């Protein structure tokens, strides 16, 4: 209660509502009691503060009033902020620049790492098994065959075979699978079966990545061979599985035996696998069979510094390639054989049946 009285006294004192006697006694009180004096000073300051606050508030009120009134009367107009996107752009320009550069650097880094770790397929220690023919040899060989059989050559006139490999039918209607590097750079491709008959072909698909190419025989002399005796395996092969290959490292079809030695190819390439077999230039593009007579891969290369290390693209890539090929509606009728019909035959009989489907690929 004392405080209230004191406050009242102070306010009356400040507002000059006191009588002279009262002022005198109040001054006396202040002098005699420093505590009261302090309170007076403090409260005076507080009241000043209140006064200023009051002014400030009322001025703010005026400002708001004026603002709204001028806005209504159209003297001032509220400009719309710039479009949000632009504003965002302006706001985050720096952040975005930093983010973009980080993204850029990361991309470059990943790209360079990818390039660094990507196996160089044409590394010097890897040899493509494409046969390079010297013209005299070809001629000589041809002579032999010509004697045996009356053979009509389909080769462009006066051009020697430049290079070649092996290919095999994946569909009896005349679709042949081989390696991309076998036909790469060829102006015309002719295939020759084990009986020495030649057929003209057209390259309908190549893929550098998997090193696969698909040729179509476009020759009037070709008769569809019907269902193929061998199948093409969609799933993988197990380590140690006995395998055999057929190919044309020379003018004659050559048989060889081996085994699956690693699940990945050169430098860990997962598209291909490694097999232990002896293969020579000309074997490229040749089929790799398992004991059931199913195609499990296509020979691509051998390692030069190692013996019996040969690589083949796994056969499931043929299926993938075919999906691409079938995008062209004219090739929709290609059907791959899945089941081998020579499963339980002995090897000699198997080869006799398979032979028909294996071709020598000659590029001019």
């Amino acid at each position, binding site marked *: 209660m004392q405080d209230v009285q004191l406050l009242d006294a102070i306010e009356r004192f400040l507002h000059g509502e006191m009588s002279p006697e009262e002022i005198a006694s109040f001054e006396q009180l202040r002098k005699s009691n420093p505590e009261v004096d302090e309170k007076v000073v403090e409260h005076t300051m507080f009241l000043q503060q209140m006064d200023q606050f009051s002014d400030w*508030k009322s001025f703010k009120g005026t400002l708001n009033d004026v603002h709204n009134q001028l806005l209504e009367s159209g003297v001032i107009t509220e400009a719309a902020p710039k479009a949000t996107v632009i504003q965002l752009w302006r706001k985050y320009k720096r952040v975005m620049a930093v983010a973009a550069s980080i993204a850029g650097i990361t991309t470059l880094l990943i790209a360079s790492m990818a390039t660094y770790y990507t196996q160089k397929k044409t590394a010097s220690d890897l040899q493509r098994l494409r046969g390079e023919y010297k013209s005299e040899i070809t001629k000589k060989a041809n002579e032999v065959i010509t004697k045996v059989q009356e053979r009509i050559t389909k080769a462009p006139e006066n051009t020697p075979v430049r290079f070649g490999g092996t290919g095999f039918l994946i569909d009896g209607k005349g679709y042949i699978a081989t390696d991309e590097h076998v036909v790469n750079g060829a102006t015309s491709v002719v295939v020759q079966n084990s009986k020495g008959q030649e057929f003209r072909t057209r390259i309908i698909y190549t893929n550098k990545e998997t090193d696969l190419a698909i040729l179509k025989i476009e020759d009037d002399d070709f008769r569809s061979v019907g269902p193929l005796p061998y199948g093409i395996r969609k799933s993988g092969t197990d380590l140690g599985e006995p395998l055999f290959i057929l190919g044309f490292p020379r003018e004659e079809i050559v048989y060889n035996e081996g085994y699956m030695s690693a699940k990945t190819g050169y430098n860990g390439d997962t598209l291909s696998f490694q097999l232990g077999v002896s293969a020579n230039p000309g074997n490229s593009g040749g089929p790799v069979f398992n004991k059931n007579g199913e195609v499990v891969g296509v020979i691509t290369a051998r390692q030069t510094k190692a013996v019996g290390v040969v690589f083949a693209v796994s056969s499931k890539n043929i299926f993938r390639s075919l999906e691409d090929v079938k995008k062209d509606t004219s090739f929709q009728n290609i059907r791959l054989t899945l089941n081998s019909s020579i499963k339980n035959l002995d090897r000699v009989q198997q080869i006799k049946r398979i032979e028909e489907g294996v071709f020598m690929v000659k590029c001019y």
Partner: protein
Amino acid sequence: MKTDSTDEKALLKGLALNDRKSVETIYKLYYNMVQTLIINNNGSADDARDIFQETVIVLYEKAKSGSFELTAQLKTYVYSVSRRLWLKKLQQQQKYLPNVLGLDETVPVDDDIESHGQRNSEFQTMEKALLHLGEPCKSLIEAFYLQKRSMTEIAGHFGYTNADNAKNQKYKCLMRLRKIFFAEFKNNDV
């Protein structure tokens, strides 16, 4: 619209007295300039309004203190204050500080802004304290100290039997307000 220095002095005088006409004139003269400044530098129309009003309050405080001597054109001063205030606000919001700001001529206003900021925080403390006070104390204090109404009027309005009763109540409220205010104030100071 150009104003010569005598006009400007009259304008400031009017401003100090919370004269509506003067406020209007200031608005008409400078609002668009400030708005353009804010909008061009990541601000919205609301930001422009806040900044402009704060600028005018700085002017008002300066004019009221009586020590205000314009060394430059009023326009330059207004521009400088707004610019400084906006930069401060941007900094507080940790927004990107645009470097396009400040191509125009400015005068140093840092001291003014600083004292304004101090006063502003005091007022905000007061506002907060009042809000904490609760009813009916808040209305009572506002009616007496802010709207400066007489005690008898207040007594009638708030339903007290007589002015003395109202007065007693008012003092009780005031004491509480002081307590809250000083507590807040110390908090802010630390």
